[in-house]
């Protein structure tokens, strides 16, 4: 009989527990102040919540406080807590004092006659979450365009071109923007925007107008090359990021002179060469690996 009684007790007790668990949600005895506080708490704890809606909550808080006869100081405190909410709370990725190793590939986009593909890498040290300094190196592979091949046939002219060989630069970075987006409203991806500026060296080589290099040997140039850039980075894990960007390299390059005689040495041809300001705009895609591979938050947000 004792077992039977115990079984019946469990049957009766089980809905009791369920009702107790649901009680907080069903409790209608909360004050407006409590509800507003909960709403504000939910808003601040949910990064995806639209901050545009928060002013309404803040107004509710203020209204509730006024109704209860609170002082102006409490209203000011409520306002202060609203102002304390940042646009993107708790960044998902911290870069400060970490090193990024980023192999990349790039393609030039602004020259009608010759296209360059490049392969290289960036090694970047982040002084803080927004400032960085690094070095960049790249190796170029040239490809003459369809238009270049038609210039001779269609216009009886041959263009003077230089190919890029390799380059290296010191790069400074600044991150003015940080954000996140929803992918099909299912996944949240954090990203940032980086501005770059740097200075370096580029090695180039002339492509002789006359393809007979035994009589028209090419010559090399070493040029000082400043650059500006902008890129965006999407954070995949705590140690991995994908980046795309654009960089504009500007340098004064020396080209072969149009009336170069045959059998002129490369040194003399270089001495007689013509300078021309060259702009090389390249689009980059890179994968960044961060060291150390993890990070710790040092502040609540």
């Amino acid at each position, binding site marked *: 009989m004792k077992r039977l009684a115990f079984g019946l007790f469990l049957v009766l007790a089980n809905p009791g527990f369920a009702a107790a668990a649901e009680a907080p949600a069903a409790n209608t005895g909360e004050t407006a102040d409590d509800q507003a506080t909960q709403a504000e708490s939910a808003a601040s704890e949910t990064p995806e919540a639209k901050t545009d809606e928060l002013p309404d909550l803040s107004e509710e808080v203020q209204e509730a406080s006024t109704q209860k006869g609170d002082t102006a100081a409490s209203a000011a405190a409520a306002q202060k807590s609203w102002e304390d909410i940042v646009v993107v709370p708790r960044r998902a990725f911290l870069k400060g004092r970490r090193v990024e190793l980023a192999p990349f590939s790039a393609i030039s986009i602004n020259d*009608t006659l010759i296209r360059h593909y490049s392969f290289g890498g960036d090694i970047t040290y982040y002084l803080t979450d927004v400032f960085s300094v690094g070095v960049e190196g790249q190796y170029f592979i040239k490809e003459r365009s369809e238009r270049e091949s*038609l210039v001779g046939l269609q*216009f009886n002219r041959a263009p003077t071109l230089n190919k890029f060989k390799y380059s290296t630069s010191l790069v400074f970075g600044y991150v003015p923007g940080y954000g996140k987006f929803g992918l099909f409203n299912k996944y949240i991806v954090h990203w940032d925007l980086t501005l770059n500026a740097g200075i370096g060296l580029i090695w180039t080589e002339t492509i002789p107008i006359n393809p007979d290099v035994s009589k028209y040997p090419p010559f090399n140039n070493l040029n000082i090359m400043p650059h500006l850039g902008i890129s965006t980075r999407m954070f995949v894990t705590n140690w991995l990021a994908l980046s795309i960007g654009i960089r504009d390299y500007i340098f004064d390059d020396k080209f072969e002179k149009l009336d170069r005689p045959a059998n002129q040495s490369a040194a003399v041809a270089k001495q007689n060469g013509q300078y021309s300001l060259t702009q090389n705009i390249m689009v980059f895609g890179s994968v960044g690996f961060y060291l150390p591979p993890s990070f710790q938050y040092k502040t609540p947000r």
Partner: protein
Amino acid sequence: MTKKAHTMKREIALLVGCLVGIPALAQAAQERKSPLADAPAIRKRFELRANRLEAGVGLTQTIGQDFYNALMLNLRLGYHITDWIGISASAGLLNITPNWRSSFNDQLNTTLGTSCQDPRNATSQLCSGSTAITSPTTDKTPTQANAAAAENRIGMVILPQVDLVPFTGKFSLFSKLFMNYDFYVLAGPALINLVSKTPSGANLTSECSKTDPNFCKARPYTGMKFGGNVGFGMHAFVNKYFAINLEAHNLIFKNNAAGRDVNGNGNVNSFDLQWTYNWMVGLNAVFFLPAHVKVSH
């Protein structure tokens, strides 16, 4: 108590235990599932596009054209069926820079200035006398006027397209300003009106004195052409009904921009057409209607 009664009590106890235990286990299993498991990534989200019309005006510009770039007055009209898919049309209706030469064309034009076909150079050192390297009868270099008359440029584009919007979010600038934004990819057909400096290259035949196709038979490839259009774009919402729209298109169509022989067969015809990739970027100020925005659950 008889053995039969004892067994019966055990069965009753077992039955009660099952009645209590199975729902409790099921409930526990349900409780272990995260309440956010099926939740959308963003709750209470402004559906800034769903069932809204988009209309705007701006400028669009070609990039990396062989001979002439175009800056065009652009109109954009669209309707977003849902928050993530829409149909729209961008139209670069008026080329306001019809004589904007590319840097390549500038350099080419300079070198064509020494063509011996040009009557002004007939007595130059390059074209006559002991220092001549060619002559008006043998030089295959077209004159500047001949080259310019055969080159085409983009006069107008009409781009009906489908916009797919997988990325939406918000960003901060200097941790102060923030905007809602979206990224979208687009695809559709393209109508491109190619025009020449002079109608049908009118001044080509008057200059013709040779039989070389790249001089005498050159003719601009003009008219309304059909092609494809793929690209991507973004909206940055200043408020709930006004946004800055940035769009990049790659127009893919067959063209012979120089209007000259390409395959070397001595004629300028359809066999000289080549597939070309023509990038355009546009910046528009757009309004979304109705101004009211639905908020998702």
